């Protein structure tokens, strides 16, 4: 199974990837609490970055409102837990279809009415903002006061209720990221993957080759939204509190997309690399500032912005296409 999924990968890339995975799997053995939380953050961004990359990197549809699906997934599972005691995995079974449905709705509106390019991007922002303001006034989820989950007891790890030590979340996210990576690779090498790339490159030419572009764009949005819903559920149970102002905010959507962009849009490893680079840099900077005794809110973000600026000016395709050429891995598909 795994062998089949890795088929056609350059040997060097496969070995490096296996090493990275082994290192990540062993990390909790030597990582302290702080490093563990950073790694969890990295994995979270690597996972949602991959989900977003399906829409933008593969199918060429720029979503600037992916926080919508994180937020909906998080709120669905959290509200079911708080109100009815329904566990997160069953909550997930509700959150995923819900997000897929909302994604299908946004996609349907946009693609049927030919809302494309910049307009599509703005539509995705608008829907996410609509949800943010809407949840602010939704009493069932406690509105802007925020929805709180009973705080985790670290005595033992309860995987079924997602109550436990961060290590549990770490392994869940590590598995999710790895599965997402293999899944994305399989998708990209399948019929739908080729059709997505064709649509991304030139939609009219794709139609002339018989591709039902509406259908395949819908597939991309629905898969991406459904994948993101999972991240939302984990987010809710990891942080235990949800505020519409935070989860749906446009800056959350932008955080999601920075990793894949810095790493390399449309590549398989780009979103993962981007998450490491950006989160790693930001945390190192926080550490450096703290060590120097400087506490300026915003300094980290300014640095973030400058890094982003530097990457898009110097490496418009992202780090991974450049790096993989340097490493002699040839193709930018790992």
């Amino acid at each position, binding site marked *: 199974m795994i062998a089949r999924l890795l088929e056609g990968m350059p040997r060097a890339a496969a070995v490096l990837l296996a090493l990275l995975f082994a290192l990540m799997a062993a990390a909790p053995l030597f990582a302290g609490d702080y490093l563990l939380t950073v790694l969890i953050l990295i994995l979270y961004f690597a996972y949602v970055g991959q989900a977003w990359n399906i829409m933008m990197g593969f199918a060429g549809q720029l979503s600037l409102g992916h926080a919508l699906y994180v937020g909906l997934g998080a709120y669905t599972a959290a509200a079911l837990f708080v109100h009815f005691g329904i566990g997160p995995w069953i909550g997930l079974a509700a959150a995923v279809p819900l997000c897929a449905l909302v994604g299908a709705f946004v996609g349907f509106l946009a693609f049927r009415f030919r809302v494309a390019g910049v307009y599509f991007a703005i539509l995705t922002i608008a829907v996410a903002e609509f949800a943010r303001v809407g949840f602010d006034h939704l009493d069932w989820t406690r509105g802007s006061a925020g929805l709180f989950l009973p705080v985790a007891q670290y005595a033992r790890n309860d995987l079924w209720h997602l109550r436990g030590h961060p290590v549990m979340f770490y392994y869940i996210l590590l598995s999710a990221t790895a599965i997402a990576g293999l899944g994305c690779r399989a998708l990209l*090498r399948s*019929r739908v993957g*080729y059709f997505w790339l064709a649509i991304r490159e030139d939609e009219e030419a*794709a139609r*002339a*080759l*018989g591709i039902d572009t509406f259908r395949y764009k819908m597939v991309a949005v629905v898969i991406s939204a459904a994948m993101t819903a999972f991240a939302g559920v984990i987010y809710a149970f990891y942080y235990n509190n949800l505020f519409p102002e935070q989860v749906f905010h446009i800056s959350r959507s932008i955080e999601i997309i920075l990793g894949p962009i810095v790493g390399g849009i449309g590549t398989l490893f780009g979103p993962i690399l981007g998450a490491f680079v950006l989160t790693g840099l930001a945390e190192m900077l926080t550490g450096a500032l703290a060590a120097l005794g400087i506490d300026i809110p915003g300094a980290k973000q300014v640095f973030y912005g400058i890094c982003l600026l530097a990457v898009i000016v110097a490496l418009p395709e992202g780090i991974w296409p450049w790096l993989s050429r340097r490493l002699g891995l040839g193709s930018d598909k790992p």
Partner: protein
Amino acid sequence: MSALLAIDGVSKRFRGLLAVDRVSLAVPEGAIVAVIGPNGAGKTTLFNMIAGVHAPDTGTIRFAGRRIDGLPPDQICRQGIGRTFQIVRPFPALTVEDNVMVGALLHRRQAPQARLRAHEVLRWLDLYDKRAQRAATLTLPDRKRLEVARALATDPRLLLLDEVMAGLRPTETDRMVAVLKQLNQASGLTIVLIEHVMRAVMALAARILVLHHGAAIAEGAPEEVVRHPAVIHSYLGAEDVA
């Protein structure tokens, strides 16, 4: 015998300009038909109506007995009509092979089978050795060939070629002509081509349709058409017979 492609009295108007004026054309299965005419004669508009980019204002288009006018481009392609664009539109970031794979996957579910088909088509068009290159790096003649390869990979019964010889050197033109002839004879592929390069038209086409200001002014065998007074006056008189 009924024609594979039957165009009956189609017209198209853009903001008052009559681009195509009641044109009819019957293309039998296995034929090669050329559409010629000066720039702005409505050739590409006629193509775009067959390929589903525009719906005709009047008239009907039938393919294999079924009405196709007004259908979207993707459905028309799935029925068996492949097309190229006058201004080539390769998928620039994809390799030559992947460009053709996209076409080959239309009627094949699995990538490995599609790859076999892509390789076959790439060999016909002398692009096999360049299959790992990005399409963006190809020269114009190679892009024209890629355009044809991609359309062929969709296994069309009818191939619409919009000026695929333009910009090719004479030897390259001859090579393309040979490839198309071979395809036509071996698999019975029906071809309708818009072409300015008369050398290719005369070598390939069994019939020629001449458009001028949107209207059909002559139709017939190549030798007849080039002697037709209206054609000489409106078209051949104005442009070089290459």
